[in-house]
């Protein structure tokens, strides 16, 4: 079932459009990869899907029925978010616990169940031993892993990841893809991931949207015709 659909979306920065008339669908419970060269508008498309950017034209809709009527809880890990916040005065566990804040609201206290989710999230990304370390003391890959743990602690039903494995070693990357596959297969989570490493991720992904930039004299932007689907169900 379609979870999110983008129809005839036009968007750009300044006066220049970078996305023109793109239409694509995201299905509930799929592990979707978005790939393409630098400047192919991968991050822009993620931000349009998330509602962080408003399209100049066209629509982006989320179909709540696809989640059995449940409110979509979206976990988002932007590109190298932790590396930009190296000086943030926080312990690893403090940051991961902040993933639960959206569920807890302003006043509700952490329950034992919530604490267990935080612990599980940290263990799943292999960072439990570092729970009392300061964020600034970690390496780039480790910072990326705790941001993924923070998103998992949010207990999302949709997870959007922008180059989440940047800075991770090979073993950590494989462990991460397996973890995401587990969440998709067992927990019916929808995972959308921008990635450059298709040769590594091919065996885990259900579908790949490959983006290329059209370069003509008039426009330098992304169009649906150049948005090819490598395998899996066809998008409109």
């Amino acid at each position, binding site marked *: 079932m379609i979870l999110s659909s983008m129809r005839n979306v036009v968007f750009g920065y300044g006066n220049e459009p970078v996305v023109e008339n793109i239409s694509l669908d995201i299905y509930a419970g799929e592990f979707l990869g978005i790939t393409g060269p630098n400047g192919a508008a991968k991050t822009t498309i993620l931000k349009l899907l998330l509602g962080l950017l408003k399209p100049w034209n066209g629509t982006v809709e989320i179909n709540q029925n696809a989640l059995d009527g449940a409110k979509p809880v979206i976990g988002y890990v932007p590109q190298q978010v932790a590396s930009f916040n190296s*000086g943030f*005065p926080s312990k690893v566990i403090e940051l991961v616990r902040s993933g639960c804040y959206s569920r807890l609201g302003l006043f509700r206290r952490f329950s034992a169940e919530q604490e267990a989710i935080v612990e599980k999230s940290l263990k799943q990304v292999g960072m439990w031993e570092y729970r009392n370390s300061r964020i600034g003391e970690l390496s780039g890959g480790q910072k990326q892993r705790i941001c993924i743990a923070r998103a998992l602690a949010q207990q999302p039903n949709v997870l*959007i990841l922008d180059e989440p494995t940047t800075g991770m070693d090979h073993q950590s990357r494989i462990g991460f893809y397996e973890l995401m596959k587990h969440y998709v297969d067992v927990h019916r989570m929808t995972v959308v991931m921008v990635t450059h490493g298709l040769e590594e991720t091919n065996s885990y992904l259900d579908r790949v949207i490959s983006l290329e930039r059209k370069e003509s004299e008039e426009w330098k932007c992304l169009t649906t015709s150049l948005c090819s689907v490598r395998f899996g169900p066809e998008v409109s």
Partner: protein
Amino acid sequence: MFDYEFMQRAFWAGGFIGIIAPILGVYLMLRRQALIADTLSHVSLAGVALGSVLQFNPVISGFVVAIAGGLIIERLRRTYLTYSEVPVAIIMTSGLALAVVLMSLESNLNKSFSSYLFGSIVAVSKQQLWMIGIVALLGLLFFILFRRPLYNLTFDEETARIGGVHVKWLSFSFSVLTGMTVASAIPIVGVLLVSSLMVLPAALALKIARGFLSAIIIAVITGLVGIFSGLTTSYYMNTPPGGTISLILLVFFITSFVIRKLLLRKQRRSRIARSS
């Protein structure tokens, strides 16, 4: 010293500001907005001058204009996302230019110019003390009630927004509180040094704290000790309180920096000794 009512008022006001300004400072520094306090103090000065020229209460007009300045900066910050220092520079120069021109029109204000610029212990009136107390109370409530969304907002605005934080509303409220705090701190430390109350305790805390809450606690303790010792020194040495407090906070910052460097060097040496 406490036999004088004005000193009692100065200590009460210093205590209120010493709690709220360093907390704000921690958030401002982490949001890369450390210069906002400086900017708003210049804007507030323009408000004081405007009040005097138009025969309004200058304290209240300074207060209102500082809040308006905070809101304008926040609005412009959203326009100049990649150059967030641009609105700060624009508002700072505009505020100061307006203040200087308006002050030249009002000769009475010119006489008390230095007390606005550098602060004065005797400048804290009962009315101002009430205002500072209310601002501190509102600020504390704001930081306690919204500690969770503020934490997420400060770490990353985009993930906070996706996680359900009303980023725009919270950022605007934060700007209003910053304007209120700056305007209420001016009587003690003055326009030129108001940002030192926010930035120096926060800079010290961010260097040594391991967690977020501990950073806030360290900043508040540093701010309070700096203000109380600065006010005392200022009373006995007859120096301007703003400059005295700022210098004491600077000494705290440099001392903590040196101690931290020495400790790190010692740790490194002992590690090398153990491994060899």
